């Protein structure tokens, strides 16, 4: 896996992007090579999270990621405004695809709890015997907020992402959703929980 990339002049980059817009076969091949380097780079960085995967399987993931990223780049070429180098802009598509694929493969076969009421059994939300009265009251208020201030979907997403450590792309796959929608659910759940704690006097209004 060679991650080195020969330098490309600004003029050559402009020409390259123009050729991509014209769907030149050579330009698309160069794009694929660029994206494959980035995908391999990312797969290698994430390989420790999926130790059961062979080198060949990792290479296949990188190839799939590069192919999917090429489709995305070509589809969104008009979004490129030149606010960064084209290579940097294109890399992020390959990194996203590769990271997502590795996360999902690493979690294949692992159980993800999708019961909105299972949070009540999460040990991390149990007050400890040595907790101060103030800390115990705060934890109790958090539990109260989990129970009363959140929707079942918000509880499920919040617990899976923050307490169970489920990667957001994995949860999105299991819930037939997407990263952005789940992030918004997480954001809203946190906001509701913080508002509940503020109303109960456990957080300052500006926090």
């Amino acid at each position, binding site marked *: 896996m060679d991650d080195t990339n020969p330098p490309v002049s600004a003029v050559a980059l402009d020409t390259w992007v123009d050729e991509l817009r014209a769907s030149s076969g050579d330009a698309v091949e160069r794009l694929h090579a660029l994206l494959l380097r980035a995908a391999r780079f990312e797969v290698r960085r994430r390989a420790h999270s999926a130790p059961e995967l062979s080198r060949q399987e990792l290479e296949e993931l990188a190839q799939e990621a590069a192919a999917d990223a090429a489709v995305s780049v070509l589809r969104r070429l008009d979004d490129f405004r030149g606010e*960064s180098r084209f290579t940097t802009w294109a890399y992020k598509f390959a990194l996203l695809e590769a990271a997502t694929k590795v996360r999902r493969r690493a979690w294949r076969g692992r159980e993800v709890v999708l019961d909105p009421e299972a949070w009540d059994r999460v040990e991390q939300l149990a*007050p400890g015997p040595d907790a101060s009265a103030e*800390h115990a009251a705060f934890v109790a208020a958090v539990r109260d907020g989990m129970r009363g201030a959140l929707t079942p979907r918000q509880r499920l997403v919040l617990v899976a992402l923050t307490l169970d450590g489920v990667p957001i792309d994995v949860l999105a796959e299991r819930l037939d959703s997407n990263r952005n929608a789940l992030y918004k659910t997480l954001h809203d759940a946190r906001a509701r929980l913080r508002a509940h704690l503020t109303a109960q006097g456990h957080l300052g209004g500006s926090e």
Partner: protein
Amino acid sequence: MTSEGTLLRLLGTGGTTVDCDACFTVLDRYVELELAGAAADELVPGLRDHLAACPACAEEYESLRALVELEESN
């Protein structure tokens, strides 16, 4: 026992309105500004807060930065 870390993960730091799609849109610019020593957090407001709240986007930010750094060093 509920630790401070658990509570922080659960509650987040509050505030950010940047979502994952918006993060993806500006990530390349943010990384290049950072590597150029520019005031990336002022020029791309809210992104740092999103990266603190979203582990997946944070991982991809770290990878993009590392990859661009590697290319610039070659």
